[in-house]
């Protein structure tokens, strides 16, 4: 065996190696910040950056859940509609309870939101896993269902939150704690929790295993159905948290709330370095991805180069370039 030991001595452990692939999204983020500063000096102002990061909080929170779903080999197109639906029933519940519970209606409503999120996620999960339906189609179906339900609840219009609750609820989006906007804190907590679960618990390992190779997972005694369903439930919880932060920002839920967020969420996850075909999720990359998307949108508003009609094209080009940079920096 001498030969073997000889030949393998130089190979060291990977642990402390710097990985370009993992750094990709953060490099892209840095590049964008520099670009932004060159375009408009105000870009790096504390207010602007804090606004942008606060705003990216919803997508970031939802995308943490999506990182679970995607790394377990699933996909969820329904998150945008689900935000609208959950925001809708939360507001309705709060409004109904406001006379009896007073301001306590707000925490009660939040609890309802989380419950609803868990149930919606469970429904998605069961359709995909027990129903064995391609996630793309299953969640496209539930996307239509949630969207229709919110349309029905709002009678095609808007559900505004009760005036009496409005002011008390506002700080959840607009407030700060130690100078940091509350949505940023919430998304940081969600991300830390997400990273903990995905990287440090048995469930996280199962998730990655199921996404990497279903057969191997099954043979290792991992229940594919359970693991993937739980990923959808986590996604539901994240959507609920996002909805809770969302409601005070605009004070209402409408039929258009959350439209196309699903695409943003998936883009954030993929830009963050998680592979769509499943296997291993990157929570921090996802967060970077969500911020990148908001930054691009912000840059579009702050710069005056681009015709209003072409904003979408420039965004598309920037995203593709960001992915290319990431790919070839490896």
């Amino acid at each position: 065996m001498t030969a073997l030991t000889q030949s393998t001595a130089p190979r060291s452990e990977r642990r402390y190696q710097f990985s370009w692939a993992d750094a990709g999204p953060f490099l892209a983020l840095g590049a964008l910040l520099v670009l932004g500063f060159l375009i408009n000096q105000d870009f790096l102002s504390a207010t602007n950056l804090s606004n942008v990061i606060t705003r990216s909080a919803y997508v970031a929170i939802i995308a943490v859940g999506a990182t679970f779903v995607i790394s377990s080999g699933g996909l969820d197109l329904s998150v945008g509609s689900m935000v609208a639906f959950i925001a809708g029933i939360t507001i309705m519940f709060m409004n109904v309870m406001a006379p009896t519970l007073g301001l306590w209606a707000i925490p009660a409503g939040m609890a309802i939101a989380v419950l609803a999120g868990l149930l919606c996620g469970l429904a998605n999960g069961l359709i995909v896993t027990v129903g064995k339906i391609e996630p793309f189609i299953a969640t496209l179906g539930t996307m239509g269902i949630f969207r229709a339900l919110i349309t029905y609840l709002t009678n095609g219009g808007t559900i505004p939150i009760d005036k009496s609750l409005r002011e008390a609820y506002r700080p959840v989006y607009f407030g700060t704690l130690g100078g940091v906007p509350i949505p940023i804190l919430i998304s940081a907590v969600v991300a830390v929790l997400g990273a903990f679960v995905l990287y440090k618990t048995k469930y996280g390992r199962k998730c990655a295993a199921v996404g990497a190779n279903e057969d191997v997972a099954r043979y290792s005694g991992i229940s594919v159905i359970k693991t993937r369903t739980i990923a959808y439930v986590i996604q539901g919880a994240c959507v609920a948290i996002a909805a809770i932060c969302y409601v005070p920002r605009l004070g209402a839920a409408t039929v258009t709330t959350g439209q196309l967020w699903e695409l943003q969420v998936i883009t954030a996850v993929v830009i963050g370095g998680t592979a769509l075909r499943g296997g291993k999720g990157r929570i921090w990359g996802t967060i970077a991805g969500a911020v990148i998307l908001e930054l691009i949108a912000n840059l579009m508003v702050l710069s005056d180069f681009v015709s209003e009609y072409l904003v979408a094209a420039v965004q598309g080009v920037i995203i593709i370039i960001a992915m290319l940079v990431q790919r070839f920096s490896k």
Partner: protein
Amino acid sequence: MSIVARIDRERGVAPATPVLRAEGVSKRYGTVTVLSDVTLDILPGEIHAIIGENGAGKSTFMRLLSGYIEPTEGTLAMAGHQVRFARPDQAQAAGIALVHQEILLADALTVTDNLFLGRELTKGGIVDDARMRLVAAAKLAELGCEVPATSLIRDISLADRQMVQIARALLDEHRVVIFDEPTAVLTGGEVERLLAIIFELKARGIAVLYISHRLDEVQRLADKVTVLRDGKMVGTHPGHTLSQIDMARLMVGRELNALYPQKQATRTSEPMLSVLNAVVPGFVQDVSFTVHKGEILGFAGMIGAGRTELFEGILGLRPGMATIELNGVPMRVHSQREAMDAGIGYLTEDRKGKGLLLQERLGPNLTLSALASFHPGLVLKRAREADALTRAVSSFDIRLKSLAAKAGQLSGGNQQKLLLAKVLLTAPSVVIIDEPTRGIDIANKAQIYGFIQDLVKQGKACIVISSEMQELVGICDRIIVMREGRISGEVSGETMTESNIALLATSERAQLAEGGTK
């Protein structure tokens, strides 16, 4: 630990109670019977070999014992109690572990992740990566496998993956450990270490089921040998009384000719393929060689010597640089297509990952690299494809139950034969075969050797990469030995002995001895 305690207790009470018993088990897929009415007792502390031709049903039987599939009929019992396994982890919990014939690991995860999949070590609810890495590294070191525990599976060689699989099965204490052709992808040193570990298991009172087409291993290991033929049990024999020839005869059910064909003097001095200064970054440095018309050139080496990478680099399948001369014409090959068009055929060692579309039927698999010849006009000629399949099935003796089967449903050895047929359909003039007889039974090995010889008789050149030194010595005109990505020597004629090859493959400066067994 409790399992071991139980084993000890049982041994004390009734040493002869079978730890695992299969009674009258059968397995049918639709109308196809793969295994019929097999009854077998496995005793603790016993090494029990199962042998049989490709497609005899060995793997099916093992999968059935370890919960991967459920029998259509029949029952299993452990220590006298009837058991039923709906899932492999239930069998594992009951103390039965299987090392699969095909590699079953998650590519995108690390070695450690794979070892502990579904049974991670935790500390206060948190997975304890540091400890798992240590345990994994220790277990791998015990097996003589030196891959870093943090490597991704997709980055390590096939042999290393096999070692990881074995480590995975040995991580916990089991009552029965089943090895389904564990040595097919291993070389000498690893095999020796594995055999030592198996003896150690036996000494601890653990029952071992062992499948191999390498009958010398069976002969060394087995206390008992059970022969399967066409899904039925032929009989169980005490191991040490059987010679390899006896075993082969029992498997095949008829007399066998010699394993290796008589060497023919087809080798010419006309160079066919010359490779100059091949470099494959990270794997191979500065390798040059020439293969002549009508020659069978062997490539030997330890695992990790870089043989596979050398040829993949030459053929444009991975980044690498080499100057090639084919029939005296210098050329560069950038892709497998160019290689094929130039007349170089390559058969990969990884039949499952790179060789066959497991979900696809046999015909499309067979013709995939030679589509042009089934496609004279616009339309694919199905009849011609069906013909080719029938011909391949008969000339390579592919055993299957239905021509409509998917490639993944073939037994391991038969997949290998299909792959060989696929490569030869491209009518190459230089054939490079990486591990030609991996998982092939003894009768068919002879057939494949004959086939290789036919190729060179037709004036082709053949390069055989193999980890079975005996096989190389048996068929090659000349053998190049690689070590750590370089050529460490060459043997031919009188110096072509297993011990010389082993010497060149392992030590820095080898003094070759002449003569010896052939």
